[in-house]
């Protein structure tokens, strides 16, 4: 039942050609693939919204090619459409992924994430086609937390006919952005639910971890401080927040405070984790840090991060801090690079 409706909602259901990179984040699911030697992306909001079942509503949803499925007398509206519905009902969307991992508080999180993935990548046209999906690093204070999340996604992609491999989100950022340094540097993906960090040396993920704080944390803390909903705060953040300008008004002050707080937590974790690792090699040349993810899109994030990093002692010197060329798509692009490389290795 569920599959049939998705089929209709998905249009013709043609699979993507070639290898696929898939970034499953808290806020978005992004796909990267090659088309005529150019990398293309597809993006869906990783969210859902439920409305009571009715025949009339269902007809409308099908007519408008809305992504949804039905279960337990409810319509589950998925992806970008969910936000539209939520705003119509003056409510907030729900998330199948929370803090980077499958949301244990949402019973339907697995069905929802499967449906969104299905919408984006479709069933594989060839047996064992390579798909590389991103997984977060183990949270600093919660090791082995990703095993369940990773296994579920892997199983589902295998069901769709793919040969799935996983890549750490931070490493994906390095593979996407740091070819100039032979994939040596620190990749940080700052998404909605968490910040993923990987120090890569010649593409070897020497240190990888995550902290469970991200854009959502900023939205919720600013919202709490000024008495506005996180959804509204997120909208303000995404429509022209400029962290390089002096703050004016309570909301902007809030953004400055919680961006500083997030960056400070991040660099302190960097200092702590890199400092205590046995594997960090002695490097004679400084290495770059690349920042990606929706949280670093506002202007001035780079400078704010640089300020937080000043005075923090790491086991090696930092040459530069750069923002990914396209912060929303860097992880998926890195995953695609990995999928292509793995295929070439075979």
């Amino acid at each position, binding site marked *: 039942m569920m599959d049939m409706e998705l089929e209709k909602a998905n249009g013709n259901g043609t699979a993507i050609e070639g290898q696929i990179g898939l970034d499953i984040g808290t806020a978005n699911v992004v796909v990267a693939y090659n088309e005529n030697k150019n990398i293309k992306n597809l993006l869906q909001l990783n969210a859902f919204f439920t409305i009571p079942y009715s025949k009339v509503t269902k007809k409308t949803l099908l007519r408008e090619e809305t992504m949804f499925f039905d279960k337990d007398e409810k319509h589950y509206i998925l992806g970008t459409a969910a936000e539209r519905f939520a705003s119509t009902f003056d409510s907030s969307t729900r998330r199948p992924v929370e803090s980077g991992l499958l949301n244990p508080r949402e019973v339907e999180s697995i069905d929802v994430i499967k449906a969104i993935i299905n919408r984006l990548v479709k069933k594989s046209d060839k047996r064992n086609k390579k798909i590389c999906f991103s997984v977060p690093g183990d949270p600093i204070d919660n090791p082995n937390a990703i095993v369940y999340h990773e296994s579920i996604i892997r199983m589902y992609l295998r069901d769709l006919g793919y040969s799935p491999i996983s890549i750490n989100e931070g490493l994906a950022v390095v593979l996407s952005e740091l070819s100039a340094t*032979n994939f040596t540097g620190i990749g940080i993906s700052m998404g909605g639910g968490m910040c993923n960090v990987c120090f890569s*040396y*010649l*593409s*070897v*993920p*020497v240190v990888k971890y995550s902290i469970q704080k991200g854009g959502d944390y900023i939205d919720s803390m600013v919202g709490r401080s000024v008495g506005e909903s996180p959804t509204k705060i997120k909208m303000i953040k995404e429509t022209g927040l400029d962290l390089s300008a002096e703050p004016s008004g309570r909301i902007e002050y809030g953004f400055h405070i919680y961006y500083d707080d997030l960056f400070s937590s991040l660099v302190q974790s960097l*200092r702590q984790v890199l*400092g*205590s690792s*046995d*594997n*960090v*090699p*002695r*490097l*004679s040349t400084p290495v770059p840090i690349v920042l990606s993810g929706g949280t670093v899109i506002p202007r001035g994030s780079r400078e704010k991060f640089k300020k937080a990093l000043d*005075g*923090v*002692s790491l*086991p090696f*010197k930092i040459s530069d801090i750069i923002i990914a060329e396209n912060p929303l798509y860097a992880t998926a692009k890195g995953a695609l690079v990995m999928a292509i490389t793995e295929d070439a290795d075979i």
Partner: protein
Amino acid sequence: MSLPVFVYSPDEIRARIISETLKAEGIASAIFTSHFELDDALMVRRLPHVVIVDVKKNIHEEQKFLERLSLRLPEAVFFIQCDLSDRPVLENITIANKIVAFDPIAPEYIRDKVEAVLIARRRFSIKKYARIGKEAFRQTGRIFFKAIPIAITLFIGLAGGYLYWCVATLPDIETLKDYSPYETSKLYTQDNKLLTEFYVERRTFVPYDRIPKHAMEAFIAVEDARYYRHHGIDVIRIISAFWTNIRRGAIVQGGSTITQQLAKMLFLKPEKTITRKIKEVALSLKIERNFTKREILVLYLNHAYFGERAYGIEAASQVYFGKSASDISIAEAALLAALPKAPSKYSPFEDKERALERRNYVLRRMLKTDSINDLIYDETIRKKLPEKAHRRNFNAPYFVDYCRADLEARYGDRLYTSGLTIYSTLDYRMQQIAERAVQNGIDKLKKGKITDVQAGLIALDLKSGQIKAMVGGANYSDSQFNRVTQAQRQPGSVFKPIIYLTALKQGFSPNDTLEDSKTFFMWNKGGEVWAPENYKGIYHGTVTLTKALSLSLNSATLNLARKVGLKNIIKTAKDMGITSTIHPFYSSVLGASELSLLEMAYAYTVFANGNRLKPMCIERIIDREESTIMEPRGEKKQVINKKVLKNIRSMLRAVVLKGTGKRAQVLMRKVYGKTGTTNDYADAWFIGFDENTLVGVWVGRDGRLPIFEGATGASVALPIWIEFMRDIS
């Protein structure tokens, strides 16, 4: 498939770091993460030229494997990556061709070494082919016509190739720009008293402006008088040395410049080969091109070895004269300049006469090079040499060991190489008082012919949990075993307040009553019946909780334990931070389960202010760039509410006012605490506190024999506690 390099590491990431480094230079390698895989590969693959073995933290397990491997691969060069602390074990491993590197992994160093081995192996092949070619040519019978020009061409080719190889395999001097030598880390008390130094090479880096001019002139005068006039190589000096050595018929003068010596110290092995000499010259020229004379001199002075485990001029000044390099006199500078040539030979502590002769030679050279005038020379040459090395007497050794373990866990080998300045939480004045109090306590026993008794004391700040004083035994040089942190002893009655706290948490009040009469209990799971006795066999009938605790009544306490439940008591103990196992038997109620003084003292903080505190020995750590890299905050967790806190404090106050801790009234201030004595008088305890400081004292013997018949917490441990509390106020 033939791979020249095998990389073995149980940690795949570490193996990949090495392998990818080599790959980036076009050197193929195979990775193995188990002995089995490597053994397998050796059976089916061509043997490797280089085997890189990562034995970090596994040296003892890997030692036999390494030796077996080296027998199987006699031609291979073994590159061993290990922990600095593994060095002694490694020295005992007999492998002919080994290169050792210490953690962290230095990819460029590994790459250079592997490249050098592989290039050298290829060179041998060229030699072999040259020999075959020569033989074939001889057979043609035209040797006189062709051999000479071919030999010349071959010689020029080989010599050129050899020189090219020497230069091509030079180490990268760019690393000098981030010069970061092994530097000593120093541990201080909170009030800035040096406690100890952690080092591999005792070295403190000093910049140019803190080295006196006359010291630099002394080194230049004796080591390299034309230092400012050459570009790394002093041709005039080489010729002069050559001529002098021929005239004397022995090597009496060297031709190496300061730059050459620096190149040798930093990058090359101390072997005497033509290859090393060529590399030394090439490196010196390279260094001179990239660094100023001032930078080279500073690097040299900070890196040279001066004997007595002192590396660099600052450590040497401290060891030989007990002062900083910035304060040394001309005579002292001359002695230091005399040393690097042969530190033990010219040591004033080894051969005074020879040392004096060499120092005066330096002074003559200084006079000759106009660094000093006749007047200063005459005055300086009469100065005496130092009599003995200045070694520091380090304080609070048990505490230092405790900090060292904590710091090693955080920083590993970097503790010994990174030049950290570490401020501990120790209060130097309190530590001295603690050491004196423990010593007096032990001496008092000795006077009564009671010997071989040990004691431990810990004092901690009740607001932060910082350790303010720690004495782990009677004499550190006799026994390094720390009775505060390492000894697991039966706490006896100091454990009892935990039972009373459990009761208060369940709603009992200090004035509730209990029966103190002979009662039978199951001793353990085996079902043995046990009737614990009160001290001196006296039973008090119906008593209040306060009285039962203050007089430390065993029967009453066990009756209370039965009411509140063993499980609840164990939970209370865990909530208070006790991590040792508390066995679920009634004997534990009277303190039969062993634990450390450190644990027990920190548990008592709950009685003092309701909070469980975390042991804290480090206040702040500063790296050599003077950035604070760690400043831990004390961790506290409220365990009991205010009402319960007030009641337990009043009960522990009653111990001092009316009970077994009466002696503490001599302090004439409000203090709280509890005595503890084990059945056979093997352990005597007192743990107590005032509003600021909590102090725990334990007295006993390492062999768990009785201290003496009748030795109690009140008679043996409490006097030490009182002396400490009296003297700190």
